[in-house]
């Protein structure tokens, strides 16, 4: 059996990325696209690439993530041989130590990495929402003879989402020359997907070297610092990529899904996207329902008007309600006569009768989880 690639999902995040949506949950557990959480995409891509050994380096606020993943069964990762491994952060071993960076997490889980049977490892994060097969990048990696292959996408970044975005500069043969922060521009840039493929032994070496030098940031210290030391190549992933890095672009990329071309590519292209199963019945449209240009998940019950919006599982929309340009998460209830425009309701929000809430198209109004308004 050809089983040469293992997965490592890195949940280290530096900033409060999505405001209230990520205040009480890691970015990986932020709900997206009507029924998923962000981690479902990277996890499903790994499973669809026939990776059966996946470690998830968790950082903090991980209760909701554990609840979501459980045994990994819904991703077909509840296995006797390999499967899903939750790798605790370094500070749980040494609570007095200051948390500095993700390399420490890798280092404290080196046992898992070195014990794994696979020769290669792909390291990726939950912020890149895409549908890809890592085996194509691995083939590129072998073909170029690179030490490290990093994935990039051609994209634009604006003032809202340039922060934390890196541009990859390459020679004609795709070898990486430098990597720097990107600047807002209307031109396409070669943006790093923060996804790396290398031999497992090299990863172990990089991590040990970093720790020995007192370094702690995987991308900065293990990869970028070594651009001249190792052969690093860049692989162009041609598909659709949503880079979730701010509330604004979370909202924008969510709305992108109302384009059926993007919907088809993201959910069907190289494999299906798996998520925790909920056993909700199909969505029910009542006689008064008026739905146009919307994504509607299972378990919804619609009596009102929904336009240009996304309804997650189990949302109830009462008569006379009007939801426009909004994202309504799981189990929300939108009361009769309510008008919502450019609003993101986190899970379990109840909006009582006749309320009117409005955000702006470049600044959606977020209602915190469980609020009753």
């Amino acid at each position: 059996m050809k089983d040469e690639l293992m997965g490592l999902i890195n949940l280290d995040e530096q900033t409060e990325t999505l405001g209230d949506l990520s205040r009480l949950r890691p970015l990986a557990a932020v709900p997206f696209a009507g029924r998923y959480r962000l981690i479902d995409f990277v996890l499903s891509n790994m499973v669809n690439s026939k990776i059966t050994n996946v470690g998830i380096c968790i950082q903090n606020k991980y209760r909701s993530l554990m609840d979501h993943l459980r045994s990994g069964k819904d991703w077909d990762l509840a296995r006797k041989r390999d499967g899903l491994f939750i790798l605790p952060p370094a500070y749980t071993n040494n609570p007095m130590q200051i948390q500095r960076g993700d390399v420490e997490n890798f280092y404290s889980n080196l046992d898992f990495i070195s014990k794994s049977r696979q020769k290669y490892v792909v390291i990726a994060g939950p912020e890149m929402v895409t549908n890809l097969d890592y085996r194509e990048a691995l083939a590129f990696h072998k073909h170029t003879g690179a030490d490290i292959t990093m994935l990039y996408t051609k994209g634009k970044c604006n003032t809202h989402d340039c922060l934390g975005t890196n541009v990859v500069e390459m020679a004609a043969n795709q070898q990486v020359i430098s990597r720097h922060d990107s600047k807002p521009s209307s031109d396409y840039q070669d943006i790093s997907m923060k996804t790396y493929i290398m031999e497992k032994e090299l990863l172990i070496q990089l991590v040990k070297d970093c720790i020995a030098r007192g370094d702690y940031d995987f991308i900065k210290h293990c990869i970028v610092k070594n651009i001249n030391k190792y052969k690093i190549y860049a692989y162009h992933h041609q598909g659709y990529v949503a880079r979730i890095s701010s509330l604004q672009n979370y909202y924008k990329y969510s709305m992108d899904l109302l384009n059926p071309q993007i919907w088809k590519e993201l959910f069907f292209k190289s494999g299906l996207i798996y998520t925790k199963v909920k056993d909700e019945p199909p969505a029910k449209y009542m006689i008064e329902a008026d739905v146009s240009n919307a994504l509607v998940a299972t378990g919804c019950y619609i009596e009102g008007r929904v336009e240009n919006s996304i309804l997650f599982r189990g949302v109830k929309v009462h008569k006379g309600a009007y939801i426009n340009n909004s994202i309504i998460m799981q189990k929300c209830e939108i009361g009769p006569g309510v008008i919502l425009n450019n609003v993101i309701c986190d899970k379990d929000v109840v909006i009582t009768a006749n309320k009117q809430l409005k955000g702006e198209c470049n600044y959606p109004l977020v209602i915190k989880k469980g609020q009753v308004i």
Partner: protein
Amino acid sequence: MHKQKCVAMLLAGGQGSRLGVLTQQIAKPAVPFGGKYRIIDFPLSNCYNSGIETVGVLTQYKHFALHNYIGIGSAWDLDRIHGGVYMLPPFVKEEGGEWYQGTADAICQNSNFIDRFNPEYVIILSGDHIYKMDYSLMLEFHQEKQADATIGVIEVPWDEASRFGIMSTDENDHVTQFDEKPIKPRSNKASMGIYIFNWPVLKKYLLEDEQDESSTHDFGHDIIPKMLSHKRNLVAYPFKGYWKDVGTVESLWQANMDLLDEESELDMYDANWRIYSSNPPRPPHYTAATAKVKSSIISEGCLVYGEVNNSVIFPDVYIGAGAVVKNSVIMAGVVIEDNVVINKAIVGRKAVVKRGATVSAPPQQHNKQAIVVVAANMIIPLDSTIGMSVSCRTNEELCGKEEDES
């Protein structure tokens, strides 16, 4: 084996020949229902929700799809270390073997299986009905009445009573008489085909019945009348709520339509009594700006550009712009191209209805209209009109690639 108080035996071997082309490739309990389910999801989910975690599923007719679907029972949380779900097709013994001759024979041939769990009670269920029922309450009732057998009954309209097995009872719910499809019913309490027996008593009757050459080896025909004639303590457990036999095309269609009712008696949205099923990994469905959807249920992965009214849409269905789907059940993976008209139809899995085609029976007297059934994988040509049911047998030229329905 761990002792179980109550073992469920689910009769799922029915051919369902009255469902016509819908059961050409699959057994009746595997027939899709309600936008994502199969009929057998209802008794299996009822078992799980009632705390019965040992279920034998007796299969016979075209069992592959059913075995494949149920697997080890994970979808219903019935993949248990002790107990769980067991598939029980007919099997060959030292001195040959034979098909299940009747419902009672099916249980009798598996009495060794039941003995493994040494249960006090056995509940017999069928895979033909749509209903939500707490079997644990029926078991309590059975114990309270110190019955030898308890039969689930439901009150049906008097004018329909002659279609059912009818129980006459006294004021203490004791069964005094049982009539199979009586011309003049004495009562309107119809047997639901759900029985709880004390296992030692049932076993005795099954072994006796096996020796009786005149017997048809059926619970309703043979076992219950015999127990009655022996003055055994038989009680009727009155069930109230939605219960529907979906044995015919008409009743299957009607049961699907019942789900669309604003005050549907069958609450699929009750989180405390979920109907479990296998869940396809599909994204939420997309309802386009050109779509008009009313009084319908729609499942995952669909793309809807046309008009959907009073219909049940399974996963992965495409409904093109200008298409009108009314009063219909559209099963998984069906493609309905632009400007198609479908009215009062059941369209089987992965059928393709090409642009401009019409699938609808001509209206008859009293506004009655027949249901058109389009078999799985059929291809309805451009601009054609289909006014009656079609399948590969009747319309070979419309036959698409035959695929297994599992």
